[in-house]
């Protein structure tokens, strides 16, 4: 196989990060540009080009896909992605902090908890990942006009409100309050009269946008 064929195959694999519809529309064109930008003799995609394609492909999959005619829904979806980002940040900080505690006090048990530190850390990471997944799932479903997602988001926000009073420690309270405020703003926007037209009952003829 020639260098060029190897390179093209590598780029085609990376283009799989994009949504299928976008790939069908623009894949050949992007591939042509990638090949034109590659220096002679290059056999595989470079690190920077690979990272750029993966990042762009993921963004095309996750970006708010709400028309400008529904600005309140657009803002709500953007807030949900912000919520996911804040939750990710809090999870990273928590992991770093717990890793530090774990090093200095290996084998100790967390105050007030019966589980050893590694179990508590694992549970915390799993809960954090589930919360991030929920933010992303709701944002995606809402951007596709799913009315059930609007209702489920409101239920999840209510549960988060109940959980808000169970947090201890400055770090936990600050991040819980921040994500709660983001959630409240998103839910408020979703139930604005201007958002109603974007959501229609199931079985309607509304054309759903797909990412």
């Amino acid at each position: 196989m020639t260098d060029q064929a190897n390179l093209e195959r590598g780029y085609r694999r990376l283009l799989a990060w994009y949504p299928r519809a976008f790939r069908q529309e623009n894949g050949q064109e992007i591939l042509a540009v990638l090949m034109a930008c590659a220096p002679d003799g290059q056999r595989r995609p470079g690190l920077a080009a690979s990272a750029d394609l993966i990042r762009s492909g993921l963004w095309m999959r996750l970006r708010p896909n709400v028309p400008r005619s529904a600005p309140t829904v657009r803002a709500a979806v953007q807030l949900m992605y912000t919520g996911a980002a804040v939750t990710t940040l809090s999870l990273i900080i928590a992991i770093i902090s717990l890793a530090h505690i774990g090093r200095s006090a290996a084998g100790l048990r967390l105050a007030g908890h019966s589980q050893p530190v590694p179990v508590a850390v694992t549970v915390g990471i799993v809960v954090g990942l589930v919360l991030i997944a929920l933010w992303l799932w709701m944002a995606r479903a809402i951007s596709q006009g799913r009315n059930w997602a609007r209702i489920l988001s409101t239920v999840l926000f209510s549960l988060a409100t109940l959980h808000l009073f169970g947090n201890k420690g400055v770090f936990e309270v600050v991040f819980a309050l921040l994500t709660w405020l983001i959630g409240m703003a998103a839910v408020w926007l979703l139930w604005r009269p201007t958002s109603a037209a974007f959501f229609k009952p199931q079985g309607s003829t509304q054309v759903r946008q797909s990412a």
Partner: protein
Amino acid sequence: MILTALANGSQHGYGIITDVREISDGRVRLRAGTLYTALDRLCADELIAVDREEIVDGRLRRYYRLTPTGTKRLGAEAARLQAHATAALTRLNLAGGMAT
């Protein structure tokens, strides 16, 4: 930058990348992934549109052009930047001719 690259007429993806590099004096190097994400957004915002498509060496080449809205937006942004630059230069001159 992409709008500026299209101000002279329609261009294809690779042409935009090389033009942006030239306009920015080599400081901005657009990558294909970033470019097509931006082109998709600019098309959705109706600032640019597909002008025509060609097949060159068996590969698709799509040309993009500014729409009237895009031309207006680019003009407004250029005027804003010019006003900002003029204000900065004026203040530097008033402060002791540093901008000479």
